[in-house]
């Protein structure tokens, strides 16, 4: 990925005491996002508010749309209009956004969507924490499609991963979803925003070659292909229909194979380059706790207590949720006795771990939302794992 240093105009360098939601907005501005369209929904609204407040001084555009359907639609227009774009929401809004999330995947439109998760289903728990939209992020839109999802565990990571989300989004031309949660969103901590020259950003890559060679798409299962910007004179066409590289509708089984394979493989095929994990004392561990987001910070306490009891426990924290780190789980499976998967849902990512665990014991530590785990529950599961 070719990177440049961040535009200082959007970077509020220095130490801050801010919550995760505000850090999302600062991360977006630092990454060069200059267009934000959103709709209020707790617990994500603070991101929109911060962006709205900062927009005039940074020279960015903020608009509160009439609903989430329109918010993400505006991002598609904004992205092809030449801007890096972002929106935030939580479950109910994300459900609406899945419509044009599909269009964004199909048209390979870069954008970043943060889902500050709260408990569901439906209106559920406004506004108490949960991690219940993990599968929705992956499988929300109809049809086969693939996105990238990242999961911050702190306000600092909300900043860092938003910059990373934009970089991945620009390079792979895919929507990147930040799956944070109410606890991280509303938690105030120290966030250090580096100087602009230390922030690496992937700039928008606009096609500037001859008109006759202009293709909005290249179906080679790779990233790095330029966008075409409206107004540059290329007369591009994009559609949600199955299309050829020119962007024209091409609705055949053969073309569907080409397009769908490309959409899936440009992410899955590059999973090794995309996936980031945070591992601790994995070597020689009997039990590996697989966790993500706020739950990984609760798991730390349980892991420390288990180690005091002499249990060899490793921690595998998923920073990248999608694509799932199936290669790493398959590597670890023969070496460990069991995996313990705590998450604030009825058991979602645990199914991915089970799929790759090669028959090893996988213990789900589920939670129906509204609060974080009691570390004791995770500790009990670790004890059970070695029995």
């Amino acid at each position: 990925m070719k990177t440049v240093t961040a535009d200082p105009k959007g970077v509020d360098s220095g130490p801050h005491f801010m919550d995760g939601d505000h850090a999302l907005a600062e991360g977006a501005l630092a990454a060069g996002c200059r267009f934000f369209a959103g709709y209020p929904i707790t617990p994500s609204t603070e991101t929109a508010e911060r962006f709205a407040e900062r927009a005039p001084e940074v020279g960015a555009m903020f608009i509160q749309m009439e609903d989430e359907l329109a918010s993400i639609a505006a991002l598609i227009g904004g992205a092809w209009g030449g801007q890096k774009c972002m929106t935030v929401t939580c479950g109910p809004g994300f459900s609406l956004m899945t419509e044009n999330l599909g269009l964004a995947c199909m048209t390979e439109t870069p954008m970043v969507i943060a889902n500050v998760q709260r408990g569901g289903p439906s209106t559920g728990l406004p506004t108490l924490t949960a991690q219940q939209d993990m599968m929705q992020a992956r499988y929300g839109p109809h049809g086969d499609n693939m996105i990238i999802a990242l999961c911050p565990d702190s306000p600092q990571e909300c900043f860092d991963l938003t910059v990373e989300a934009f970089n991945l989004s620009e390079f792979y031309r895919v929507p990147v979803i930040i799956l944070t949660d109410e606890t991280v969103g509303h938690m105030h901590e120290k966030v250090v925003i580096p100087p602009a020259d230390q922030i690496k950003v992937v700039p928008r890559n606009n096609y500037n070659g001859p008109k006759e060679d202009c293709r909005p798409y290249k179906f080679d299962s790779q990233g790095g292909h330029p966008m075409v910007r409206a107004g540059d004179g290329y007369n591009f066409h994009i559609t949600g229909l199955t299309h050829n590289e020119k962007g024209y509708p091409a609705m055949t089984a053969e073309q569907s194979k080409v397009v769908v394979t490309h959409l899936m493989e440009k992410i899955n095929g590059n999973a090794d380059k995309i996936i980031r994990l945070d591992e601790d004392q994995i070597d020689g561990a009997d039990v590996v706790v697989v966790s993500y987001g706020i739950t990984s910070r609760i798991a730390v306490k349980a892991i420390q207590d288990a180690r005091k009891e002499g249990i060899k426990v490793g921690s595998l924290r998923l920073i990248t949720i999608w694509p799932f780190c199936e290669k790493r789980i398959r590597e670890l499976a023969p070496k460990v006795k069991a995996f313990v998967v705590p998450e604030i849902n009825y058991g979602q990512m645990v199914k991915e771990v089970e799929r790759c665990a090669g028959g090893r014991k996988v213990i789900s530590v589920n939670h129906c939302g509204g609060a974080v785990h009691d570390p004791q529950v995770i500790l009990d599961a670790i004890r059970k794992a070695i029995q």
Partner: protein
Amino acid sequence: MADTLRMDRMPHIWCPGCGIGSEVNSFADAVKRSGIDPKKLVVVSGIGCTGRVAGYVNFDSIHTTHGRAIPVATGVKLANPELTVVVFSGEGDLAGIGGNHLIHAARRNMDLVVICNNNFTYGMTGGQVTPTTPGGASASTTPYGNYEYPFSLPFLADAAGATYIARWTSMHSRNVTQSIEEALLRKGFSFIEIISPCPTLYLRRNRLGDGVDQLQNYQDNSILKHGADTRETAIDYQGKIVIGKFVEKNKPTYLEASDKCSIKLVGDDYQLYGKTIPEREAEEKAEKERIAARRAAMAAAEAQEQAVAAKPRKTSAPAAKKAAAAPRAAKKAATKAKAKPAVKKAPAKKAAPKAPAKAAKKAAPKATAKTKAAPKKTRK
């Protein structure tokens, strides 16, 4: 026309007698006449028969999801205010599934041109009832006649705050061209409704003949009323259709209002996407001058063309009468404002088919009365 259409995508999907083709023709004509830079034009469509327009016009074009053309267009416009953004879609897309976006874009006075093909039916899916289907009309989902109250779209757009509203029918293609041209050259939310025939579904199902019969109906039943009160623009089944330019007013657009607010906050060095307001205004002024120059060149070329066309007729003896009139028309075209020729031509063209139309009318009223009577039965 070849330069404004994607000829590599022809033939198009529209049925014979459908109104969308002539609307696209008017649109292409309007773009040319307006003098705007076609490179800076973006066309956004939703889903449905009219939703396919974006795929056939040779501009930057986006074919979106059902109902979401307006918010996508909003995104394009706000991401690059230099662009002229047109939404071209059907009434089911814009006023049904996308109704919320329509009223909010109008409320914001978002700088968009919205062209709405209203054929009272969901064509692509096989003729279902839409938010504008007149009471009593049959649709595949109202097989015993529509018993819902329809929207009058000009009234809806007016109530929501649109600053330019016009309605025409497929019969009035020159007026459509003129309205689109005006809308392309103005700022703010422009809404142009075009009542149009769907011979394959709406007309066949309601036994209203083919596209030409319906154009005759438009000719007979249209009432031209510029500045009409939009509350009085409702359309009854095969009833009178009030047409004209209903609303044209100025108020700050979303971007202008946003700029004003931001400059108050940040001061004179306020920038959007790295450009100050005076910089953007200067660019806009330069673009306006380029447009004016293109229009002047076109008007001059048109006048010359007319003058040339008039000359050989002078020499041919039998056409002496016509030749005498022609140079006068050419002179007028050259001296008067560019929009004028369209107005001048519209009645002239109308006058031509009037004679055969009148002849047909004698038979026609009975025919239309018959077709009117049939659905009335279903209403009872």
